[in-house]
């Protein structure tokens, strides 16, 4: 196992770069970060729409969230893979496809986390803000969201962990990420799949376990910091 790692660590880390496209662990992390960052505004919009008193906002947002959450990610990836070239009018690479699919998919999940964070705030917070004469948007931006997002930080880190694991599905559309790199190594060595995929598993585990631990640490800090209102960890 060590020998495999010794000979192929660079491929695991950055793919074929600099002689080919960047891939491996670097691309896995890059895609997870980008997908989560890009889906964030959509997630907030969906969460606010879901909590809106207006039916015409609430119903479509609810429908979107439930639809996306009711479908497997792999289906989304295939769907994006075949549809986005038609929409954009040119070939779309594996990485772009995966990021697009992840943004849509994660937006639905993240929006539920944010919605839970908003609903978890004491009702008095909004009442106090509105009582000062603040309108909806200043109340939301200055009072509701800072608290909700802060309380939901552990859940968001957990969501990041899930996203990292989900990028491995990029393998099926040849997105150059960590799993893809491992399969390349496996194709070269041919006889040691257990060891190669063992390295892959350990790498994912180390990364995800470290992040989950971070989430727990943040959660403890939050619940001790403001005396109460512990965040909810969404199982990754």
């Amino acid at each position, binding site marked *: 196992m060590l020998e495999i790692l010794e000979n192929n660590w660079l491929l695991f880390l950055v793919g074929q770069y600099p002689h080919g496209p960047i891939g491996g662990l670097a691309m896995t992390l890059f895609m997870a970060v980008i997908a989560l960052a890009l889906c964030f505004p959509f997630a907030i919009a969906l969460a606010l729409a879901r909590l809106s008193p207006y039916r015409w906002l609430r119903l479509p947002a609810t429908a979107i969230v439930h639809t996306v959450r009711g479908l497997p990610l792999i289906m989304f990836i295939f769907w994006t893979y075949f549809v986005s070239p038609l929409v954009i009018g040119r070939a779309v690479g594996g990485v772009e496809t995966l990021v697009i699919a992840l943004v849509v998919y994660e937006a639905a999940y993240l929006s539920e986390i944010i919605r839970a964070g908003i609903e978890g705030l004491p009702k*008095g917070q909004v009442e*106090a803000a509105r009582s*000062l004469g*603040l*309108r909806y948007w200043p109340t939301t931006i200055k009072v509701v969201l800072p608290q909700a997002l802060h309380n939901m930080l552990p859940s968001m880190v957990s969501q990041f962990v899930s996203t990292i694991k989900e990028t491995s599905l990029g393998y099926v559309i040849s997105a150059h990420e960590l799993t893809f790199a491992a399969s390349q190594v496996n194709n070269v060595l041919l006889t040691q799949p257990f060891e190669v995929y063992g390295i892959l598993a350990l790498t994912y585990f180390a990364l995800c376990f470290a992040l989950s631990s971070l989430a727990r640490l943040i959660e403890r800090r939050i619940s001790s910091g403001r005396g109460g209102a512990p965040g909810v960890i969404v199982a990754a």
Partner: protein
Amino acid sequence: MIRFENVDKWFGTMQALAGVSGEVGRGEVKVLVGPSGSGKSTLIRTVTRLEAIQGGRVLVDDIDIASRKVDINRLRQRVGFVFQAYNLFPHLSAIGNITLGLTKLRGMGKAEARERGLAELARVGLAEKADEMPGQLSGGQRQRVAIARSLAMDPQVMLFDEPTSALDPEMVGEVLVVMKQLAAAGMTMICVTHEMGFAREVADEIWFMERGAVLERGKPTDLIDSLGHPRLQGFLRTVSHGGDIHR
């Protein structure tokens, strides 16, 4: 200044307010007392439309607050509201709680808002706590910051919803002092409270409420000391003998 005309309010099938009428003049201090669930808090919450009403009218400066012409956010700036649970914004410092409204609603710059905020904190005796977070303050201090936050908007009326009920007994006094100062300065106030000493000292009139109606109203001396309504006398006995009047 504030007039209730036959105000009805239901929570589902439970009638919280049953035809409440009454008037609060400029500079007057009205104290609402009564057992819990009698509709005191609900009544003052109708003034800024924190609770919608199903019948009657609530008028502020002779304007029906339910009317389409009323900008409710403007109205809320003119009517300060102090909550039982303080409802300070925990992610903002004491001064940050106060300057939020000033910068967002009054268009003040940061420096100007801070100066005004400090003045309000000094008024409630907390200038030196300006940069502390609400979590670092005691209950009494939090409630004083909440009062300062409301006062910073230059309200013409202040509504207090059991402002001392959540406080430990030793902190009740510091909040009542601030409220008495406000009353002495001529602020129009409606206070829901069980602090009968406070009521006796500053109230122009006490309204005794039960089951969503004002059962009796009168000057504190008449109402507390003489024999009022038997229900009121019963209530006063529980308030003074109960021992947990601050809970």
